[in-house]
Each structure stands twice: as C-alpha cells, then as structure tokens.
C-alpha cells in the first residue's frame, strides 16, 4: 500500500494519497514553525500580518477588485484571441496572428505608458494593458493548438461532404474547444503577474498589487509572504475551477490521457 507511493504510474487509493498530501503539508508547516529561516518571517508573523491585512487594509476587498478586473480582462482577451487564432485559417489574416504572438516581447512598462496616452481613465489603462498582454499570450497558445490539427482529421470531415468552412468549424473550432479552455487556464497566471505590476504603476485604482507593493516598500516581509500565499491560493482555486469546467463541458477531453 505505502510502497505504491514509490512505484512509477502506480495508483494509490485516494484515501492513502490524500493522507500523504496532508502529511507533507503538515510537515512543511511544522518545519516552518520550528526551524525559522534567518530572513524568512515565521509562521506566526505571517498569520498576524494576514489578520492585520484583512482587518485594517481590506485585503479581501482588494483581492476581489483585482480578481474581477482579471476575470473581465481574461474574458475579453479570450474572445479576441480565439477570433485572431481562428482567422489564421484565412491566409490573409495569418500575419496578424504571427505579429500578435510576437507582441509577447513588448515590455509592460512601455506599453502602459502608450496605453495611458490613448485612453483616459486609470481603470481603462489597466484593463487595456491586461487585455493586450493576455491576448498575445493566448494567441500563441491557441495557434499552436490549431496547428495540431492533422491531415487525417480534416480529410475525414471533407469526405463526409462538409465544405471547407464546415470542416474547419467541426474539426478545429468544435473539436479543439477543450484544448482552448486549457490554454486559457494556463495563461491566467500571466494576468496575475501583470495585474500586480500594473496596479503599482496605476495606484489610483488600488488592488492587491498595490497592497503588495506597499508591503514591499515598508519591508513588511511577513505581509509580502501573506499576500503571496493568498494569491497562490486564489490561483490554485482557479485552476481547480477551470479543471471542473472542462470536465463538465468536455467530458471526452481526457479520455485518452494516461491515468
């Protein structure tokens, strides 16, 4: 039973597996509690500062504000990126997708300055930077999903008498929606990186990024760790949610994956 945990590809029983995970977590916490590192804040300090952040600095509200902004940006970026990626079917639009995916290399700070010149309110700058940043990453992932389409798949649709458009819709659009959702899930993390950065550049809007920035500036290490852990937990929750959505809408999607 226990040795299952050290056999490649073994499938330990769920109860065993979750007990193991719980033990690992507790072990880490104990290690943290009893053997504090020199610079790293202790567990007690982090917890205290978490409590302080929640009660006096509105951590939860800031988190919520950032999260909704992130989700809004992600939704718009997903639609944009899907359209751009699907348009690569038409040779005319291929350069756009190519260019869009290369825009990943634009730096955020320069971009923010540029956006600030174009739109008026701080919120809009924030949103447009996030949308832009997420779109270029999503386009990259999505076009590479589209490129996995095989000759056989397309031929199959064509032999059923489907037109070129219909074949594309059936094989590439419908057939790969699940993988597109996976691309979105993977790139959500990028939005978190960007949002914390953009919020420090655009402080009028607040947000968890600004909170993090303040903790950094006043060298509140415990606060920094607490906020990072909160973001980490939110991210993990998101991943889980996306996974759940995928299972619900695309039950076929991991049927052929090795278990």
């Amino acid at each position, binding site marked *: 039973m226990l040795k299952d945990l050290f056999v490649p590809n073994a499938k330990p029983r769920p109860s065993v597996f979750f007990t193991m995970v719980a033990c690992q977590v507790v072990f880490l916490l104990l290690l943290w509690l009893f053997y504090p590192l020199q610079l790293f804040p202790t567990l007690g300090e982090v917890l205290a500062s978490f409590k302080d952040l929640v009660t006096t600095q509105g951590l939860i509200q800031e988190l919520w504000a950032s999260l909704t902004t992130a989700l809004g940006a992600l939704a718009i970026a997903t639609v944009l990126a899907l359209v751009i990626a699907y348009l690569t079917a038409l040779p005319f639009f291929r350069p756009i997708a190519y260019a869009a995916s290369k825009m990943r290399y634009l730096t955020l700070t320069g971009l923010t300055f540029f956006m600030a010149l174009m739109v008026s309110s701080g919120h809009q700058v924030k949103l447009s930077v996030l949308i832009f940043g997420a779109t270029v990453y999503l386009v990259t992932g999505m076009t590479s999903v589209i490129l996995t389409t095989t000759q056989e798949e397309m031929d199959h649709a064509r*032999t059923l008498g489907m037109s070129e458009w219909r074949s594309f819709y059936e094989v590439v659009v*419908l057939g790969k929606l699940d993988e597109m959702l996976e691309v979105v899930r993977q790139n959500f993390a990028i939005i978190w990186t960007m949002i914390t950065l953009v919020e420090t550049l655009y402080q009028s809007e607040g947000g968890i990024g600004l909170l993090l920035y303040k903790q950094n500036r006043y060298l509140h290490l415990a606060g920094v760790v607490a906020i990072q852990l909160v973001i980490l937990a939110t991210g993990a929750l998101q991943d889980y949610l996306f996974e759940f959505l995928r299972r619900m809408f695309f039950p*076929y999607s991991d049927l052929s994956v090795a278990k």
Partner: protein
Amino acid sequence: MVDHTYKEPILTLRDISMQFGGEVILRDISLDVLDVVRPGVNQGQVVGFYGRSGVGKSVLCRIIAGLLPPSTGTVMVANPQRPVCPGDVGFVQQRYPLFNHRTLLDNLLVAAGRKHSPADAKAKAQDFLIRFDLAPHRRKYPAMLSGGQRQRAAIAQQLLCSEHLIILDEPFSGLDIAMIDEVKKIIIEVTTSDELNTVVIVSHDLATTTALSDTLWLLGPERDAAGQCLAGATISQKHQYNLAEMGLAWQPGIQAKPEFVQLIEHLKDEIRKT
C-alpha cells in the same frame, strides 16, 4: 450468352502520377470502372485493391477521393463525368477517424444529416447502430470504443452520407469473423441497392476481398526490359483483373472453386514479385 454488359463510366483515372518531394510514389495509372449491367439483377461494382505495404494504396485512395491533387492526371466521377471534389467519394481511412468530441450517435447523426432530413437521419443512424452491433455504445465517445467498434462506426458514418462511390481502406483488419461477415453483408447490400454503387476495398485479405469483387487492381512497381525496377508503382494492364470476364464473380460459394484457389495463389505470387 452474354450475362453482363458495360455501360457508362463511373470512375475514370487518367495518367495519374504522384511525387512527394521528388520521390515518385505512383506513375501512369489509368483505370476505368464502368457500370456493369446484368439482366434481371440490380448490381453495383466491387473493386478489390491489393499491393504491398507502403506501395502507395492509401495515397491513390486519397487521390481518388479528391483529397490529394495528383502531380499529373485527372480523376473523373459521376454521370456525366466531372473532376472529383472532396465529398464526392466516401472514404473510410485506414485509422478510422471519428469526431472525438462527439458521441457515437452524434457522429452518425452529423453524417446522416448531410443528406437526410433530421427525422430520416435519426432513423438511418439508429438502423446502422443496430446492424453494426453498436447500439449499446451509442452514448460513448470514440476514445471509449474498441478498435473494431470505431471501424464499424467509421464505415457506418461514410455509408450514411456517401453518393455512389465509397472506398474502404482495409475494412477487414482487426475484425472478428462474425464482424467480417457483417461488413461483407453490408458491402453486398450497398452494391446491390443501386446499379451505380461502387465499393473499392483496399485489403491484404485476398480470399475475402476477391470473393466479393468483380474487378481487381494490383498496385506494384514495374520492371523494364532489362529487369530493373522502375521508380513508382502502377497498376499495369495485366494487373487489372476482370473477374466477371473470367467467370469468377457473383457466385456464392466461389471460394471453394479450384479456379478461384488458383487465382488467389497467382495473386500471392504476383504480390511477392513486386
């Protein structure tokens, strides 16, 4: 007494050749499939198509199905004859692709819906599910099906939306005896349901396929006068067998006949030589 005559062409290949980046795969293939008419019998055509592995059978199938433009030559289908377009020819590919994001029933429905009204499509799909022994699996996704089930599903899908011509790339591999019989029965049913229906069967199972066929094609490289192999495979005149003319078509229990057994031995020799 003439027991059959030939009428209009159904499928015509003229001077087909195919190269992939300078490598010649196929050359100078010219073939005709004509509508066979037998008095008192409603009968389509069955072509058996043989050749060594890797010789280019699947490539020729894709060319006939209009999926791959040949380097030279033309493929003509339908009446009056016109150049082939994708969708004119049903083609069950060697690895039996299905839409992985649709359930088995959905796969059949989407194909049937191409030609029939929704109600008809449903009835036809149900009919195929039962005949192909797939009814209990209708809610499953392709990834959950066995190889043979996928194969039957892929054949059913093409039959549901094909016109007169259908190509089966290795329809008998991986099936048990009962299912081979089932597929055979379906091929016979398809060909006897319309004069113009024509099934091309790519197979390594000579006995089963020859027994069903009225024409055989053998694809292989040719040797020149000096005995050197020429680059690229072709179907030469002597490798186009008209079984109807040879008196070896359309007979139940033909597999027991000595002439049939001889023909199979001859085919095996010819395939070995290539």
